[in-house]
């Protein structure tokens, strides 16, 4: 409680605060595959100062504002949810709350960042399971728009932003009779944009083209949503043809069949929802659970994401999707990596986020037990850029309220 009051005071009164927090004796899951048993995690202001072995170091209590004993608990870097409409929609069935899909086929200039609702009720239920960062992603058309990496805590979208306009999202056409035509239309669009980019000073400002320009100098990623072997092969050619620096496959249902080529092309994969039914009737029943291990075995850079039915609310199950892969070939730390460091590497924010390493932002949480198992994913502390966040949400409040109702009824009876 003492800690909490301190945190509150930080939140309420001091924006440019200074703090030193030391977490002792927890098991730190670094996010890069390493584990530090009995860890000492030092937080100074918004950064991780160090992660060390608490048994081999001495810490002077007076050096720290707060020392928290995490004995028996587990410390994790933030889980990161890529390719998600979280914050852009509230209730799927209510049109008024759907802010992720605009009119038009070519919308690179449509930006998710500014529609991101930091006060979304869904967001608080996601946070309490360890997901603290999201890539808010628009949908629809051939180019849906530009996504942004957002913190799941902030006063407004400006201070919640980690990386604005991190990439555009291109929906690669599915195979049909029009496939070749559609593919050419995409290439034409990119060539048009490349021409604009090479000579933008002499042209009237074209906001659509402006949004494309950073794609050619590597500042912005090109996220290409593609599933099948054919699509993925064509995406690889597309990358080469246009000389794009950062291309990411989103979905990649059949990426495991394109292994070596994908690896050579250095295109990472944001793999679709693990909790899915197999795409084909003839597939092994557990194929979607196994694909991460198949990619891992082939040395393909990948992370998990959660696109699909009811994805905003389902984001809180991202840790359990990662956990499910553990029975099908990934180790616990590899599973963790696929929803933490790997995601940040693929999005290009790994210098600041993704793992419990010195110098990175203190965006992490503490759980009573292993956080990839639903029985033990029970968060006791959450920090976003060093700021402690409530570990409860309105749902838990309703729970407590009605628990109280029944308790008082029991008393009166």
């Amino acid at each position, binding site marked *: 409680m003492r800690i909490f009051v301190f945190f509150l005071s930080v939140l309420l009164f001091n924006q440019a605060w200074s703090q030193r927090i030391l977490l002792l004796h927890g098991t730190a899951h670094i996010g890069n595959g390493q584990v530090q048993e009995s860890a000492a995690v030092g937080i100074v202001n918004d950064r991780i100062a160090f992660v060390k072995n608490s048994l081999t170091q001495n810490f002077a209590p007076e050096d720290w504002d707060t020392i928290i004993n995490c004995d028996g608990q587990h410390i994790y870097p933030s889980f990161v949810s890529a390719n998600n409409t979280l914050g852009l929609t*509230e*209730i*799927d*069935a*209510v049109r008024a709350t759907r802010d992720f899909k605009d009119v038009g086929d070519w919308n690179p200039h449509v930006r998710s960042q500014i529609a991101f609702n930091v006060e979304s*009720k*869904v967001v608080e*239920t996601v946070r309490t399971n360890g997901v603290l960062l999201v890539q808010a992603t628009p949908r629809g058309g051939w180019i849906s728009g530009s996504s942004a990496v957002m913190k799941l805590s902030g006063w407004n979208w400006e201070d919640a932003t980690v990386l604005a306009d991190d990439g555009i999202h291109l929906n690669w056409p*599915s*195979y*049909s009779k029009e496939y070749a035509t559609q593919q050419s239309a995409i290439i034409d669009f990119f060539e048009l944009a490349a021409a604009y980019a090479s000579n933008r000073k002499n042209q009237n400002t074209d906001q659509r083209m402006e949004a494309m320009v950073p794609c050619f100098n590597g500042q912005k990623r090109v996220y290409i949503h593609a599933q*099948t*072997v*054919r699509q993925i092969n064509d995406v690889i050619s597309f990358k080469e043809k246009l000389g794009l620096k950062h291309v990411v496959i989103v979905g990649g249902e059949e990426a495991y069949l394109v292994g070596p080529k994908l690896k050579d092309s250095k295109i990472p994969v944001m793999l679709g929802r693990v*909790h*899915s*039914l*197999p*795409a*084909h*009737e*003839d597939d*092994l*029943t*557990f194929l979607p659970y196994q694909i991460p291990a198949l990619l891992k075995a082939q040395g393909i850079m990948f992370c998990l994401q959660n696109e699909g*039915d*009811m994805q*905003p*609310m389902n984001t*809180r*199950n991202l840790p*359990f999707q990662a*956990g*499910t892969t*553990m*029975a*099908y070939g990934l180790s616990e730390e590899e599973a963790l990596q696929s929803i933490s460091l790997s995601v940040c590497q693929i999005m290009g924010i790994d210098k600041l986020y993704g793992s419990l390493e010195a110098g990175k932002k203190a965006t992490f949480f503490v759980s009573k037990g292993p956080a*990839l*198992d*639903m*029985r*033990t*994913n*029970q968060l006791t502390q959450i920090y976003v850029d060093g700021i402690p966040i409530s570990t409860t949400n309105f*749902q*838990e409040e*309703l*729970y407590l309220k*009605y*628990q109280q109702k*029944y308790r008082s*009824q029991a008393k009166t009876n």
Partner: protein
Amino acid sequence: MKAPLMLFLLFVLSWTASFAQFGPDNGTKPSEPRYILIENATIMVKPGQTLQNASMLIEDGKIVKIGNRIQQTGALTYDYTGLVLVPAFIELYSNIGLEPLNYKSNGWRPQMESNKEGAYYWNEAVHPELASADAYKLNETQLSQLQQSGFGFALTHYTDGIVRGSGAMVALGSSNIHKQIIEPRAAQAYSFSKGGSHQSYPSSQMGSIALLRQALYDLKYYSANQNTLPYSASLSTWATLQQSPSIFKIEDKWEILRAQKIAREFNTEFIYIGAGNEYAISDELHKVQTKVVLPLTFPEAYDVNDPYLAKEIPLSELKHWELAPSNPKLLNEAGLEIGFTTFGLKNADAFWTALRKVIARGLAPQEAMAALTTTPAKWVGQEQQMGTLEVGKLASFSVFSADPFQYEAQLLATWNLGEERSFKAYNSHQILGSYTLHLPNKDYELIITGSNEKPQAKVLSITGADTLKINAVVTMTASDISIQFLHKGAGGQLVQLHGKLIKNGMLIEGDGTDENGTWIHWSAIQHQTTPQTPLVSIKEDTTQYGQIWYPNMAFGFQSKPSAQTTLFKNATVWTNEKEGILKGADVLVVDGKIKQVSRQNLTAPSGATIIDATGLHLTSGIIDEHSHIAISKGVNEGGQAISAEVSIADVVNPDDIDIYRQLAGGVTAAQLLHGSANPIGGQSALIKLKWGVTADELLISNAPKFIKCALGENVKQANWGDFNTVRFPQTRMGVEQVFYDGFYRAKAYDAEWAAYKSGKSSTAPRVDLELEVLSQILHSERYITCHSYVQSEINMLMHVADSMGFKINTFTHILEGYKVADKMQKHGVAGSTFSDWWAYKFEVNDAIPYNAALMTNQGITVCINSDDAEMGRRLNQEAAKTIKYGGLTEEQAWKLVTLNPAKVLHLDNRMGSIKAGKDADLVLWTTNPLSIEAKVKLTMIEGTVYYDEQQQIEKLQPLIAKERTRILTLMLAANQKGEGSKLPQKKVKKHYHCDTLGEEATASENTH
């Protein structure tokens, strides 16, 4: 043959004229022959009986004599030397000569009531009053196609709707409609397809089934009370058809078994018009002795030249493509009587190609013939008139160049009621051969090759020293031949000859002009004959085709599995009983039941399978209280606010891959629920997830009865678009009144029947299937599972039930159950909920994942269910979430998906725990089933192993790959022969959700 080129040789026969055409003739009465005599023919009298060199005497359109030496003075005589006569085929599924039906539409607004004016049945898909005989018109194109396929009779009817009306047996002669209708009400027709009607109801196959049953009950009631009831144009006509045979069009093999139940209920019999995949359940069809008319439309080969696309074709489709042409043979072998229909075939060539394929696949020629003649004649009670060429039968037959069941014969002509129609010139003269062509001044050698229809000729001068072979143009019509060539070849003068064949082509004589233009007389004498192109036999197809799997798709069994005596050794056993979790325990399974659970070492009976479960966890199977998998053609009958009469149990689909997938997730039983499109939905199917069995074998025997009800946004159509504002109710207020209305009507119905049964009233009331079911609820003979979200509506329904004197059994979804758990506990209702779903619509704003725990703590029996094919296979994980959200113990959590659903479904005397005497529905897990790392190793139902992880990986996966390659090889070979232009497409597996409307599943988001 008198005039082979004339397409229509018309003899208006006296008997028909005197019966049907009462009007006067213009001019003198038409002349006609008294007798027609066909001589020297091969007559295929009936399957298994052929007369060689035989004659047939026809009088008045009927066969009066048949035999070897028939003489009849004054007969018009036909010499059919070398030709084969086959009885006219009988088509039982046709809409020839009928215009498509027109239905009035309301445009985009739902149509609740019939738009048909008049005293007709309330539902437009039921139109027994339609008499095809009254609307039949001659349609030359359709007639000609059927005739060229060898058909002489067709049962024509409106191939639209559920009760389709009467079918007329028509003869396919094309000259005079007054002779054609042999039997105006030869049959009545049915189907499960609503057809062109725009009326909202029915919108699903279970709705069609219920509607058909209700209509049949209405027919009974009407027939019994015709004197007192108001006239119904539909029912009164239908009543007159009750002695007519019934044909029933189905779209899938399982529909036969569905319709068969109706046949039993109403003590009738259906002749099925098949779908083409019946072979996969031939043994089941044999058990019920069904009559099936088989289609000859086989699936087209895909173009599989692109391996990326070929990958998208599921094995189920590959296997069906391979075996569909063997359908007739396989059914015949299984002991079923079969017929054939040309329905769906493009033209006569397609018919003959398909029929030959069927014969090549091994259907005996005699059986093929029977399927087209005697069998259909017998089925529709027309065997006195048609089906064979015997004395007294109608003189309708086809003339072939050879036995069409053995050879690739040509159909040359048909006879319909003694009236000939010629399709191909037949020439009995044998003109192929070498001739000495004698012109006054010169002799040539004339060599005719090719065929009678397309002769090719050369001439060679043999008088001079000239040895030039000159091409000649030869044309032949009947016995006339013309020969033209250039004397001395190119640049020479034209020689034009015309002649007549004499003595079957041995001699040709005629006249013409020679190269000088001089009129000459000429002759040619045959000195060598070349036989006609030899007959091509239908060759037996010796390809080794694949086996039928159960089900006939990926992961199907090669032979049906059976229960084994099994001993699990040294397992961690989650008993769900007071013993709790037993470590190092043995479980013995005998005869599909759990025989013994013990921590002592049990000895395996002889022959038992022993499974070393050291380090593994054994649990009872997961039971999913809320599932929509394994359902055919519609999960909602949303056409009306109350549809209690429909039942999911009528439309269970055993071929759904999701059954196997759920097994792989440890699920052994499920309640397949109607959707939530209306307040009182339909009856449930309680099934065990047995793989490779029939729908009836999936259903849990003697299961308690359940019905789905629903509240909230779905039933008030809140999220269905602005045009869906027609159906009552549109508010939660209206929903309450729908329930009261239903139950008050049910009470009145009960009273009416009670009065009848006690003798107070003498006439039996009308059977109302909807009210029967509502009455079962009132009498607590059927339990309600109600889809519900917010507390107001939950409260409301408990009040309705209390005031009517029954209990709600289960609230499903029940996402605000935690708010009214005290009231629920008092009412005694169970809650079956999601672990953590919310935010998909407005009414789930207050849904919390602590719901299950809060309700559990208030003493409610709680289940975690799936309502989703994907989540259904990891309900163990969903149950484990209640440990996180609300702090249930592991044993409590596990019961949420096993024992509690068994209790809620009133099946806990048979399942839900590991206890001696219960069904051996067991799952072997790699570790604690609530762990994120848990995996199913084996799933057993009633002692039979239906899923085995190791089998899947080591045996089935390679087998599937091999089977795919084998069939794709055949398909590629077919591609190279020019078959298959259809490109495969990626198919997204579609699912039924609570709010899926219509017969088609969707790939859209699940919004529950």
